[in-house]
């Protein structure tokens, strides 16, 4: 089914957060800290306030009123302390964007600077074990005897991988437009992946009853996690509008986004694996070193996927975190699974090579009966089928396992494979369905950030009602609609769709309206391990002269329950794999060790894949009938595409060149440093 909002998107009529026409709107522009650690000594706004059109300046000199619950990145201007370079320390409000930007530039901020520490190292003295990792997994797990397993192994690998700071970089910069009414109620047009949770966070930060706050996000220009938590622009727009007594719009610049909208933590990951002579794992030990800020603890669950992948008598996973003078990392597409599976699946490839076993065969031999850490049965698990089907489609049987032997002129050619996985979770949601003049209005505070939620929910409701999809109209992206969880964790469709199906069932009984709340239903879900699985296959061409790596083929095979809509699903899988290709080959934000903060804060320096970087990527899926998920029988598909892709590409680079690059991204200088 074509996207139901397709027409407004191709004609330029879809309204994103900064685009609502509002009478008398004014503009805010923030000022960012120039130091990485210290205190704001003085803010001199006198020159800025004297400039044309300037309505207000906000800073810690006169802290705007926030609730005592306000914390972390959202407690704007409440403290003189600076936690990282780039933190918002002031803002100017003016009648035009140009005047606001000029006024912000004229605000003088003086600092008492302290010595900062922004470098993640595996031997950092500040490393500690967090209580839990995102969102609530135990930090460490241990089963069996790792050292005994490694001692007993026929072949072992002990390898360390690093992944850099990565930025989500959705195409739509984070923006908000805030309006207060005469009764003190607040309307925020925000770039939010969830309007219910954004409303709650804005209300608690400002100290307002949540009935007095409404958040609207009808169209969101991508998020990939960075709009899943409320970001400072929403709070700043509200504060600025209160100070100026006018509606205020703020759209962060691309450069500002790098500092205040979250990022994927850099990781250092050590993997120790052992196999016996039959190719069965004797030990799997995965430790991840990561960073967070001094403001908030965010601990990415990088080693968690190792808990579900392979059968082994000894399994240890651990996370160590250090709090640095940096911005707070946050969710980026498949937090945990994406960096963790990059390292695990690269290490599995190294192990297969070291043991002389085909990498697909190694994974097949270590397929577990039940979830390796919890012992829970899987609701369904078709990793082996994905590997086999991918091997057939990709022509894996024609591959010579010896690396570095296929050469076409300057180009070395190789292929690689990796497995992928992502949890299939659903959360409680509400929904309402109403019959109106023969058509059906579906209302749920879901979000469509490009995933196609409107279209998927239309299809789900039409199916549940037994009517044609053109009789169903879905309304979402508004916190005044029935409360719903965030578009994240690949659980949107599963969560909202469950509520929509139940509301449709209620309507069929009632005749005109159906409402649903799946809180009790979700609570009663049986205890099972629910995960999607997949396998990515990559073919690369590595230029021996320039060091360039070109992707010539990319295939993903997935087993993700019942696919709700094949058109949307294919786009989601391919989109995730495209972002994975960026992670493998180009994406990297550098940390400025001398001054703090990030370098490469724009799209000319932070390279995301462009059209010419991608071959004709292929994504397919296997039919999977799983009755233990939700009424649709679906598993989330927004994130699994990125998981495994970087490892498949890295493994292909090894096959092409005979050398491992263990530090992402695999850029030309790293290739040229190899000897082949």
């Amino acid at each position: 089914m074509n996207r139901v909002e397709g027409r407004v998107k191709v004609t330029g009529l879809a309204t994103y957060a900064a685009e609502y026409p509002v009478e008398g709107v004014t503009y805010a522009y923030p000022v960012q800290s120039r130091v990485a650690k210290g205190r704001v000594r003085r803010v001199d706004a006198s020159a800025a306030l004297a400039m044309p059109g300037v309505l207000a300046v906000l800073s810690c000199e006169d802290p705007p009123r926030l609730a005592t619950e306000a914390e972390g990145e959202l407690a704007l201007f409440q403290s003189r302390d600076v936690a990282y370079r780039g933190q918002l320390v002031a803002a100017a409000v003016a009648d035009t964007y140009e005047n606001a930007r000029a006024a912000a530039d004229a605000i003088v901020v003086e600092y008492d600077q302290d010595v900062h520490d922004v470098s993640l190292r595996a031997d950092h003295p500040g490393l500690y074990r967090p209580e839990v990792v995102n969102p609530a997994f135990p930090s460490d797990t241990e089963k069996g005897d790792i050292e005994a397993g490694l001692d007993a192994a026929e072949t072992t690998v002990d390898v360390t991988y690093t992944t850099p700071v990565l930025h989500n970089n959705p195409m739509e910069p984070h923006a908000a437009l805030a309006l207060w009414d005469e009764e003190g109620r607040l309307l925020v047009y925000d770039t939010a992946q969830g309007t219910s949770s954004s409303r709650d966070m804005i209300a608690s930060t400002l100290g307002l009853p949540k009935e007095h706050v409404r958040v609207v996000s009808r169209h969101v220009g991508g998020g990939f996690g960075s709009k899943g938590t409320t970001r400072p622009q929403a709070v700043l727009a509200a504060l600025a509008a209160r100070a100026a007594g006018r509606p205020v719009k703020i759209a962060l610049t691309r450069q500002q986004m790098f500092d205040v909208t979250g990022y994927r933590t850099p990781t250092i990951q050590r993997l120790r694996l052992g196999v016996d002579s039959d190719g069965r794992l004797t030990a799997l030990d995965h430790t991840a070193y990561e960073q967070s800020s001094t403001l908030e603890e965010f601990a990415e669950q990088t080693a968690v996927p190792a808990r579900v992948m392979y059968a082994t008598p000894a399994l240890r996973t651990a996370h160590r975190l250090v709090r640095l003078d940096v911005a707070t990392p946050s969710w980026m597409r498949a937090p945990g699974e994406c960096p963790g599976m990059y390292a695990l699946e690269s290490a599995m490839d190294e192990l297969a090579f070291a043991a002389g076993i085909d990498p697909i065969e190694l994974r097949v031999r270590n397929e577990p009966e039940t979830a390796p850490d919890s012992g829970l049965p899987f609701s369904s698990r078709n990793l082996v089928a994905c590997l086999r089907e991918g091997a057939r489609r990709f022509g894996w049987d024609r591959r010579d396992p010896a690396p570095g032997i296929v050469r076409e002129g300057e180009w070395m050619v190789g292929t690689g494979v990796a497995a992928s996985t992502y949890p299939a979770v659903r959360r409680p949601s509400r929904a309402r369905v109403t019959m109106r003049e023969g058509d059906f209005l579906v209302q749920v505070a879901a979000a469509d950030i490009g995933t196609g939620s409107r279209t998927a929910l239309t299809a789900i409701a039409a199916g549940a009602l037994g009517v044609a999809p053109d009789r169903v109209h879905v309304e979402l992206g508004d916190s005044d609609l029935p409360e719903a969880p965030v578009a994240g964790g690949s659980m949107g469709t599963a969560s909202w769709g469950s509520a929509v199906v139940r509301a449709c069932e209620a309507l069929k009984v009632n005749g005109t309206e159906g409402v649903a709340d799946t809180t009790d239903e979700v609570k009663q879900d049986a205890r099972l391990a629910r995960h999607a699985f997949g396998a990515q296959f990559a073919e690369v061409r590595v230029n021996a002269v320039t060091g360039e790596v070109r992707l010539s083929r990319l295939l993903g095979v997935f087993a993700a329950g019942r696919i709700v809509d094949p058109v949307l699903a294919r786009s989601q899988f391919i989109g995730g794999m495209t972002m994975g290709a960026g992670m493998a080959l180009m994406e990297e934000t550098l940390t400025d060790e001398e001054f703090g903060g990030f370098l490469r804060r724009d799209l000319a320096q932070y390279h995301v894949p462009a059209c010419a970087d991608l071959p004709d990527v292929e994504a397919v899926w296997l039919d999977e009938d799983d009755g233990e998920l939700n009424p649709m029988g679906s598993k989330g598909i927004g994130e699994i595409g990125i998981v495994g892709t970087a490892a498949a590409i890295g493994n292909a680079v090894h096959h092409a060149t005979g050398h491992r690059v263990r530090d992402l991204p695999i850029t030309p200088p790293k290739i040229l440093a190899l000897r082949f």
Partner: protein
Amino acid sequence: MDITLKVNGVSRTVAVDPRTSLLDLLRERLGLIGAKKGCDHGQCGACTVLIDGRRANACLALAVAMDGREITTVEGLAQGDDLHPLQAAFIEHDAFQCGYCTPGQLCSAAGMLGEPGPSAVTGDILVDPDLTPEEIRERMSGNLCRCGAYVNIVSAIAEVAP
């Protein structure tokens, strides 16, 4: 200062701040939100419009320099209710997800289809090449799409390309 420009066929006279970009003029003054601001530095292509028929980044053009120019934005591609063939092909091929880069992709593709001459991937540079998928990928690489819809963008444009 006052400038007069034609936007989607309609003549407009506006007083502009000399610091204002064409992109901000369209979005903040003329109510045309189709052209998107993704980076404001000419790096992402989301603001691509046609200036006198040629594709250009509206964020890199100063409004004061647009006096007497003809601008076409994504809002001006369709003829009434009839979508431009590229718009229809983008819907049919699912060539977008979040939609934020889409107006720029469409304007860029519309401009690209009329651009003669070789590109970096053209074999014989003395002959106008066919718009193969490889040529389309090369010529559309100034328009970033973070959702990763490139595969479908290329197939949509290929359907419309001569």
